[in-house]
């Protein structure tokens, strides 16, 4: 296939960015989106032009490193997929493809398509853990967890921290991410003792990082590669209100 790419190029966090057009010729429909960019980059290097910087690592849809906005959609047109797992067979020959970085104030651009998502790490540091020191923990089977609870916690825990939810949201809200993280731990019996502190502190950290408000439009859910459900947002809101009420 032959494609035309409009790629966001930005030298560093302080410089102005702009779109530049590149041709991607002779692309096999079996290549992944990132492999297609690899091919374009090889061509750029041969011509002495700076290759397009983009983040990636596992290329298996699990590390959450990759992420770009493709034709206006975070992670591209195929639902429930990370950019690395998107294949060119889902595009049409001759198509124009616009590629941009995540755009959200709390995720400043570092270069081209690479952004700084360390705000997510700081939200976790504010309380996204169970304080179990190494050693001295009881036998795993002394804590029974009903299968539905275990499954629900796992549904939430499936979040890969990619940030597409933030990129897709008009307000750059991180509610889906934070709700997934809070819910995973708050659903489990092991997480109960710190339940209230966790949700209050994480929500506070989220606000301090500059993420916007949630207006429950659902654009986040639509792009989430792990299909994290909006229900977790309502669940977190309940946990949050409960925590405030209990701390009165």
């Amino acid at each position, binding site marked *: 296939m032959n494609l035309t790419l409009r790629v966001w190029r930005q030298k560093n966090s302080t410089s102005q960015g702009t779109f530049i057009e590149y041709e991607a010729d002779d692309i096999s429909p079996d290549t992944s989106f990132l*492999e297609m960019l690899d091919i374009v980059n090889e061509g750029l290097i041969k011509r002495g032009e700076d290759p397009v910087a983009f983040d990636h*690592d596992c290329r298996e849809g699990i590390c959450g490193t990759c992420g770009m906005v493709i034709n206006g959609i975070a992670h591209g047109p195929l639902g429930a997929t990370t950019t690395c797992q998107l294949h060119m067979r889902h595009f049409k020959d001759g198509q124009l493809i616009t590629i941009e970085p995540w755009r959200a104030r709390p995720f400043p651009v570092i270069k081209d398509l690479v952004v700084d998502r360390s705000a997510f790490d700081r939200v*976790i540091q504010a309380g996204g853990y169970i304080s179990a020191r190494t050693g001295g923990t009881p036998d795993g089977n002394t804590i029974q967890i009903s299968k539905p609870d275990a499954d629900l916690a796992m549904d939430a825990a499936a979040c890969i921290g990619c940030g597409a939810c933030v990129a897709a949201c008009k307000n750059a809200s991180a509610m889906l991410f934070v709700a997934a993280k809070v819910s995973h731990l708050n659903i489990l019996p092991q997480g109960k003792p710190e339940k209230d502190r966790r949700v209050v502190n994480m929500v506070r950290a989220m606000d301090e990082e500059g993420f916007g408000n949630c207006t429950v439009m659902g654009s986040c859910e639509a792009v989430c590669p792990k299909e994290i459900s909006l229900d977790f947002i309502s669940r977190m809101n309940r946990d949050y209100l409960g925590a405030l009420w209990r701390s009165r």
Partner: protein
Amino acid sequence: MKLDAKIPSGPLAQKWSKHRHDIKLINPANKRKFDVIVVGSGLAGGSAAATLSELGYKVECFCFQDSPRRAHSIAAQGGINAAKNYQNDGDSVYRLFYDTIKGGDFRSREANVYRLAEVSVNIIDQCVAQGVPFAREYSGYLANRSFGGAQVSRTFYARGQTGQQLLLGAYQALAKQIEAGGVKMYPRTEMLDLVLINGQAKGIVVRDLVTGEISSHAADAVVLATGGYGNVFFLSTNAKGCNVTAIWRAYKRGALMANPCFTQIHPTCIPVTGEHQSKLTLMSESLRNDGRVWVPKTKGDNRPPNEIPKEERDYFLERKYPAYGNLAPRDISSRAAKEVCDEGRGVGPGGRGVYLDFADAIERLGLNVIRERYGNLFEMYERITGEDAYKIPMRIYPASHYTMGGLWVDYNLMSNIPGLYVIGEANFSDHGANRLGASALMQGLADGYFILPYTIGDYFAAERPAKPSVDDPEFKKVESEVAERTKKLLSIRGRRTVTEFHRELGKLMWDKCGMARNEAGLKEALDTIPAMRREFWEDLNVLGDGNELNQSLEYAGRVADFMEFAELVVYDALTRDESSGAHFREEHQTPDGEARRDDERFSYVSAWEYQGVDQRPILHKEPLVYEEVHLAQRSYK
């Protein structure tokens, strides 16, 4: 050089508890004065950094990804072993120990492996306490599945995301310590050299991948938890960033590299489709619990799989290994697949593939059960190949996956350089010549949570806190060497890209030093690699400069190290003139094509000492002494 593994005396089952008792304690006020550098934040590094910090040590932790949560460990799908015997199917610490020793084809240390089996049970408890959402039965108890190379169900899992969930557990523990001020985390920072002062590991030189700044960090001890080197084959199941740089630079400073030729090829990966391919995707081995592996009986049978009647299919693993069938260990299954493809019976484009068929399992258990067990894997398969494996069999082929070799360490996980510890996939410690499925996660967490945090105390007990200043001339010297090298990579401005060189090297390694090896091929590789390396340094093209985010530059540094390291892998493979586990020398096989060990001559760990680029390294041998197990011909028939 005398290699002392420092294995404690006494009966096997009591060595670890005795050793723990013998290690002198350091008082809490003193612990605060010791600084530890942990390079890597995967399962091994993340768990170690968190635990060391909980104990009171001051920790600095480094990773090259943008967040510690993204280490390669995250990709592990299948599960983690532990000798819990929750299924009451006859498992025990001893059985896990024995399975691991046997699976490693009797090329690992008894004492290390026994300890690993022993602490495996604590890992599960620890992870449950942290909130890792392991799969549960309806009773609310933990669920298990079985995995290659074992006849008991001892594998714990969290859907197809076990690595992700375990890593999040460690990452969250780490996050807590970061918040508490006990750990300073440096993401997007790459270690480019090790600094020794008076022969002791005292720090590292790093490059900030965003600003390009090269700087030093000093400490009382350095822990490398930097993962495996499977990407020396270019195509592998590893994350793209996985590399040998940290341990290679340590090797060049005097650390010994052990068993580098023990590289594991995983039997169930999606076959290569074309030149554009940048990596290979693993289909979790757990699929072999229910999938049946087959190829057509006759060569050149091009009918679609569903039209080939049962009688005309060769379920070759079940045929050759009736006791283990589709669950035969990885090295054995991989070679069996290669063999049928070599015979011309392979399937799919290029004939490099075998079927993994779920039709029988779907009939027996129903579609829903299969979907519940493997849904995400089937989805991933469809995403990549465009095929629906519920309807037509998957195609799989072996790919480079895991590296048993790594830096040599003693029982305390310390290398031959005092103060340099190596944990997780980066060391060589526990898996011998072949690793069993679901045992890498176990080892990484055992090292990080339960072994290193104790054994490092053994070293500190005899030391005074003496973190040097980064202005020490030794640091400055190493810094300028690193800067020089970076400058050199940028100044060549030749014609070829890093990827081209990496692909070329990988192809050579796969052909000559991959699933099967022979003397002639290995010698050829020894001739080719130095020439390729020279060309690399003459004709490489890396654009941009060093004072910015420059991904080609990062990659070039890693491939430059692979170019040197590959030669060592080949030396090791050539010297080990026997077949053992994943190291299959075609000259040494039984009449039915199984690996034939030579215990008389090769029952040792090879530990290589650097002598300079283009110089033959020196081989040291650590003899393997078996007190408990009886060395047997490995059989899975």
